[in-house]
Every structure is written in C-alpha cells, then in structure tokens.
C-alpha cells in the first residue's frame, strides 16, 4: 500500500475568466493532520470541492488517487463511499431534529423496510462518546451550542466509517475552550487512524496540531512544510501565504489632502440577537476628510457587520453600546435612508445579491438612492434621469449599449462601476466600499482605484473593506485590522506590511466570541 492515503495530481480548474487552480498537486499521508492554508480566494475551497465530488469528474483536469486507486467522483456520494467526509463552515444539521436522527440521516439503520430507531439510539450514544460528548441523543440540535454542533457534525462523519475527514474552518465560530476541545478531538481521531485535512486561518492552531502544512496562493501550491521534522513558525507560514511579487496596479494619488475628522465611532458594540453573541466589541474608528481608510481582516472577522451596523441596516443586530459622530455631531441611523440623508453611502460586497436591482436598467439603478434629486412635483423627470445616467456612463466609462440596458446584461466590472455611480449620485461625504474589486478583472480594478483616488482628492472620505491585502496596502492611507469582531491593530500605510497585517488578522483575542 502506498504511503499516501490521498494524492491529487496536477489539478487545474478554470471558471469563466479565472484559473482557480493551476496544476495543483496535493499529497496526504495516512493518519496525519494536514493543514491547508492560504488567503481568501487562494483556491482551498475549490480544491476540497473537487475532492468531495461537488465539482464532478470531467469538469477539471488532473487526477485523484486514493490508496493507489485512481478515482472518478461524479457526485458527492461517490466520495462518501470512499470514506471522505467534509464538514463545511455552515453546518448542515437539521435544527429541529434530535441528534440521533441527524447522525444517520441519509444512512438510516433499517430493519427490513422500516427504520430501527432503537438500534439508532444505541449507536448514536456510542458515537457521541467517541467525540467526547456525553449528551442525550434525543436532544434537538437547536438546543446545542455552536461548539457541540460542530462535534455532532464530526460524529456524523464518524458514523459513516470515515477515512479522510475534511474540516473547513471548524473553529471560525467557536470560542477558545470549544476550539481547544475540537483540536484535542482531532488528535484523538488521529490516534484512531483517521486522516484529517484542516482548513484554517488561525495559524496558532495550525502550528499546534499540523503534521504537514500546505500553502496555497493564487491557485498554486507554494510549498508543503513538514511540521513533524522541525518546528514551523507562524511567521514562516505568513511569509509563504503573502509572498508574491507586487505588481504596480495601484495608481498614485496626485496630491494627498487629508483634513479634519469627518466620521468616528467609539466603543461600537453589536450583538447578534438570534445567536445572543457579540459580533462587534468596542470598535473604535476614525476617518478624516480626503482619507482612504482600509479595513483588513479575514472572512468572518466582522467587517461587513461593522459596515451594515454603521449604515443603519442591521437585521437581527442590536447596537448595545457606543456612539457614532459625523462632523463632530452624534448621529444615529435607524434605517439606511437616515444614513443616506446624512451623506453616508455603502457599496455592498455582493452587488448581485443586495447591491443592484438586476432586472432593471442602468438609469433606474443609478437614480434609486437619490430619486428626490430628479423629482418635479410628484413626477420623476425621466429626461434629467437619462442625462444624469449618460453623464456617469461617460465619466466612469460604464460599457453598456445604453442606459436603458438591464444591469443583468453588464459584465461584473461594469456592474461594479454602476453600483459606485449609484452612490455618487447621492452625493455622500463618506462612502463605504465593501470588497470593491471582488470578481472583476485587473483592468476594471485599475479603473475603480483611479476613481477612488479622484473621489478623495475632491474631499470625500472612503472606508474600504477588503480581503485582498495588496489592495489594502496599495490604496489606504491608514489601515485597521479586525479579528473576531474587534480591532486588533491600526497601522499607518508607511509602516504596514503584509506580514504585519496577517499577524494581526490571525490574532485570537480572549473571550470575545463567548
């Protein structure tokens, strides 16, 4: 038998316009804990989706070999049959059903044609013990905490005689104690012969448990480090994660003209009502006139929640503490309409999901937040609307056959320009850009950056939330770094480096998520 339980050879996967994985080879030894790290968008999830059969055989190049046998997974069930189980960040449990039903859903223990519930409950108890849970199997999932749910997910995988267990950011939503508990369990499973692939952003955990660390960057394997032979440090991983050549795609601002403080939040604390947990804790932030402030942090660090809570749209959130000041005056936004009225705009991270009305045309979308500017009495003046939209089309170079073209027919970059145009029409003083260049090509990125520079030189202020470190470094005057709902650091553009940001973004603080 081969030393490797799993080999993925020369995997290449392309999406329209993007090479998500480029000739990736990935080998996992029997019975090890293999950590997969990389920035957001490096290709980790794509690789795991190929392994689990979400992207079926034939939609990618390369081969998967398990125990020396080449495999062709056409469906998730094919990989399950080979003992591969994947546990995603968003758990796939049925909250209204008891633990024992969840454990065997889809693989019910049968007695003839009916389900053998007695046997199910007995087996459930045994499996729960294996993951260290001493719970009544009849407990409903909704009555469990996040940490216990995570363990139930693992128990579910174990019930299927799993050989390779893949965990995608299992500790992202867990507090310290639960995280440690989970990592101990992984060590325990390893001793029982289960191979684990762990995807995580928390480098501290990785250096603690990993036998091998594979670093992905821009769809390629950068390196595979053997952590059993020698101690791998967090710094070393960070260097591999970010260490690429810096291309000069960030236009220089002609003149930096930073004025007094325009916007400030103090001790901003927000609670998610449903989960009854703090998602933002004592956030302090200042933005000056004519300044681009970058907000860096990993997914789930609370950046979008921060933007939404500032903008007055926090469904299910309560702002339990803190004040917000605009031009020195305390303000409160109960609805995005209030924020817009006060000159704050928010370009969402998901332009298709909640940014644009795709089935409407370009001019409809641009005029939406500030229709009152086009009102003549009761009537929206369509002539002025067309003239205005044409102006934005020209000045932003929005490539569309006409301003009466539906937005769904525009390319991603042009949709993004339309979303920015929409907010500029509302004449904000402060504009929050959430992932302004996600999913658009280099050329369109450059245009967005140029536009941002123009805006701040006119005296506008920008908060730019971004997962792309280079973008944050290239565009910001000042950078806040968030982790687990708190600001873990503030850096000046001059002193900031990718390593410093990564270190702060992966810093775990005590107690915040509890």
């Amino acid at each position: 038998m081969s030393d490797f339980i799993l080999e993925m050879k020369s995997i290449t996967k392309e999406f329209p316009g993007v090479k998500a994985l480029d000739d990736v080879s990935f080998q996992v030894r029997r019975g090890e804990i293999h950590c997969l790290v990389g920035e957001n968008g490096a290709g980790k999830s794509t690789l795991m989706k190929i392994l689990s059969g979400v992207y079926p055989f034939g939609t990618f190049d390369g081969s998967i070999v398990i125990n020396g046998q080449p495999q062709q997974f056409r469906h998730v069930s094919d990989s399950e049959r080979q003992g591969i189980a994947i546990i995603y960040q968003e758990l796939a449990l049925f909250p209204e059903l008891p633990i024992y039903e969840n454990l065997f859903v889809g693989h019910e223990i049968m007695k003839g044609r009916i389900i053998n519930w007695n046997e199910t409950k007995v087996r459930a108890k045994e499996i729960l013990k294996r993951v260290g849970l001493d719970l009544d199997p009849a407990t409903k999932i909704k009555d469990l905490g996040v940490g216990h749910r995570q363990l139930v997910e693992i128990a579910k995988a174990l019930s299927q005689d799993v050989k390779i267990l893949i965990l995608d950011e299992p500790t992202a939503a867990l507090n310290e104690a639960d995280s440690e508990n989970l990592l101990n369990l992984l060590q325990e499973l390893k001793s029982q012969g289960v191979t684990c692939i762990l995807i995580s952003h928390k480098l501290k955990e990785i250096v603690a448990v990993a036998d091998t660390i594979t670093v992905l960057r821009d769809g390629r394997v950068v390196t595979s480090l053997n952590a059993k032979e020698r101690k791998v440090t967090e710094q070393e991983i960070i260097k591999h994660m970010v260490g690429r050549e810096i291309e000069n795609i960030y236009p220089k601002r002609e003149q930096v003209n930073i004025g007094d403080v325009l916007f400030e939040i103090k001790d901003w604390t927000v609670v998610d009502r449903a989960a009854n947990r703090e998602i933002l804790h004592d956030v302090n932030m200042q933005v000056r006139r004519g300044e681009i402030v970058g907000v860096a942090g990993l997914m789930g660090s609370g950046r979008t929640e921060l933007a939404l809570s500032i903008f007055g749209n926090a469904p299910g959130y309560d702002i339990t503490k803190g004040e917000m000041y605009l031009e020195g005056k305390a303000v409160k936004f109960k609805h995005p309409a209030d924020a817009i009225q006060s000159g704050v705009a928010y370009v969402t991270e998901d332009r298709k999901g909640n940014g644009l009305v795709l089935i409407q045309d370009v001019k409809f979308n641009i005029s939406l937040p500030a229709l009152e500017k086009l009102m003549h009495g009761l009537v929206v003046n369509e002539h002025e609307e067309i003239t205005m939209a044409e102006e934005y089309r020209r000045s932003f170079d929005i490539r569309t056959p006409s301003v009466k073209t539906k937005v769904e027919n525009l390319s991603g970059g042009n949709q993004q320009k339309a979303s920015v145009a929409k907010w500029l029409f509302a004449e904000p003083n402060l504009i929050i850009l959430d992932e302004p260049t996600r999913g658009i090509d280099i050329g369109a990125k450059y245009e967005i950056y140029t536009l941002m520079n123009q805006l701040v030189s006119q005296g506008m202020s920008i908060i730019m939330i971004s997962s792309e470190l280079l973008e944050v470094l290239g565009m910001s005057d000042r950078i806040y770094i968030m982790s687990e709902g708190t600001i873990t650091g503030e850096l000046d553009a001059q002193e900031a480096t990718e390593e410093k940001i990564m270190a702060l973004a992966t810093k775990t603080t005590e107690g915040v998520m509890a």
Partner: protein
Amino acid sequence: MKTARVSETAAHGGLGAEIRSLVASNIRDYAMYIALVVIFVTFTIATQGLFVSSRNLINLVNQTGYVAVLAIGMTLILIIKHIDLSVGFVAGFLGAVGAILMMKGWNVWLVIPTVLLCGIVVGVYQGFLVTRIKVPAFVTTLAGMFIFRGLLSWVTAGTGTIIVRDRTFLQLSNGYIPDLPWGEGLSFHLLTLLLGLVMVAAVIFTQIKQRQDLKRYNFATTSPVIFVAKLVFFSLVIMAVTWIMATYRGLPWTAVIVAVVLVIYNFILTKTRFGRHIYAIGGNAEAAELSGIKVKQVTFLVFASMGLMSALAGILYTSRLASATPTAGLGFEMDAIASSYIGGVSVGGGVGRVTNTIVGALVIMSLTNGMNLLGVDISFQYVVKGIIFVLAVAFDVTTRSKAKA
C-alpha cells in the same frame, strides 16, 4: 416604451427582420392580445354573433369592471412579491356593509366614502400583520378570506339577500354617462363619440412625443412604417369600440370609473417615486432596503391600496347585482390574480404594468361571459379558467427563462 426593447440589430435587417425581432422581444404582450382575439373569434362564431352584439359588449364591460379594479390593486401586490387571497370576500363584505347602510337610510354620497374608508382600514390591518408582525401575506390573507367570508354571512344572516334601491348607486354599474344637449335627436351618443376622438388624439400625441424623446437620446426606435401601422391599428380599435358604445346607449359609468383608476395607478407606477420603489422592492428587496427605501412602509401602503380597491370592487359588484348576497365575492381573488398574471406580471416579482393587467382582466371576463352565453356548466367554467391561468404562468416562466439563457 415598448419600442426601446427592439434590439439594435433589427434596424439594419429590413422590415421582416424588425417584425421578427419585435415579436421575439414582446412575445408576452402579443400572446395576450392573440389570446383575446382567439377568444373573441371563437365565441362570436359559437354564439352566431351574439357575443359581439352591442348589448353583450356593454355587458362585458360592466362585468369586467369590478375584476379590473381588483386586478389593478393586485398587480401592485404581486409586483412586490406578496399575495392577497382575501380580496373577494372583503369586496363581498364591504358591498354588504354599503347595502345595509343604504337600507338604514344613509345618503349614497356618504355611503360610498364610508365603504372606501372601511376598505382602507381592512388593508391597513392586513398590511400591519404582514409588515410589522411578519405574518406571511399568504397566511394573513387566507385568514382574511375566512374572516370576511364569515362576516359577510353574519351581516346577511338575518335578511338574506339585501336589495339595493338607491338609483344613484345602481347607476354605477348599470348606467351610462349623460349626453350633451346638442346630441339630442342624433342616432348616436355624441359625448361618447367625442371622448373616443379625444382618446385617439391623446394616444397619437403621447406616442409621437415618446418617439421623439427616444430619438433625442439616440435610443433605438421602430421604423416609421411599423410606427404608423401601430398607431392606425390602435386608433381603429378605439374608434370601433367607441362606435359600438355610441350607437347603443353611450359610455357606461363603470368604464369611466375603471379608466380613472387605471390612469391614476398607471401614473403612480410609471411616473412617481413611489412607483419606482415598488419596482425596486419587487426586483430586489434587499438592494432596495440598502438604497434607503423603506420597504415595510411601501408594502404597508400597497396593502392599504388593495383594501381600497377591494371596497371599490364591492361597490361596483353590489351595484351591478342591485343587491348584496351572502356569497358575493366568491372566487374574485382567482380572477384578479389570473388577470394580473395573464397581463404579464412576473411570478418572480418586479415586473408588471396595470395597463396590461386590464387586458388580462378582459381575457378572463370574456371567457366567463362567452361561456355563460353558451350555457356552459359553471363547474366546467372553473376548470377552463384554471387551465388558462396555469398556462399563462407556465408561458411566462418559460419565456422568461429563455430570455435569460
């Protein structure tokens, strides 16, 4: 606006190509008109001409009235992706309330505003449940359907059918506009004919203005031949309908009421900020909220407007039957929803026009009217209407998914 949907390539492909492209991009609207023509031709032949007699066509207009106003209100509800199942019995109940008030001796000019106000109250109640308490509209209005059905049988329990005798009230669904003094002795209704001519002039004027605007901003327009052909066609249809009415007893009051409601709602939807907000919410409610639109408030108002339209429908129906009956309103919601969907409201929300909804209402009510003339059994009528309804939606879903691909 239709002209804007013609693709640019058509401009270079000659008349044949332009017509093909027009048909391709407006297939939904055309299908509705074709259905209407097919229904008219079929029933005309089957009834040996009785269907298109002046008397029956006027009858059709009066029958369509109450469904048309319900369908206009329903179009807004469906655009923002909600539904109102209670409209039938709300209309029935409020009609009965009006009849009772008149029986008690209230003046008709006091009764009508009171009933309309009650309609708004009902809409406010349902809007409150949907937006504030977050009970899904389907549940809220299904419950409303039971509540108002119950209330209707309760208020009519003692008396059974309540006869309405007020002449003004009866005019609403059975009367005609008075003629001008100079029309006396003519073989046709002068004012009706004049109104028809005014309408033709208005259509020609607005169409030419729209075309000029499109040209001014360099948007694609149809070729002059098609444009003139369309104008001539519309003018002929309007004049034909006008002539039929003018040579009978003139324009029915119902048509006037529906026309006023239609003009107001069309104005609101196409010209005002509120209309923009409705389309934005239907297209993407989350994006609308994040653009500063108060989604709850708009939803609330749309339900209030639906209540108002239900009350108006109740008045028209009661006037038409000259009585309030314990089963008034049965199945109206089906006719109203079907009219909207046949008229091109998208099941996915965000799309729909009240002007087309009216044609949809005409399709549904011509079917009803024609089948009644032929003496088709009422049970079978339900089956036919159900099939037409589901076909219309199936057609909508398939044409839209093709357009996307």
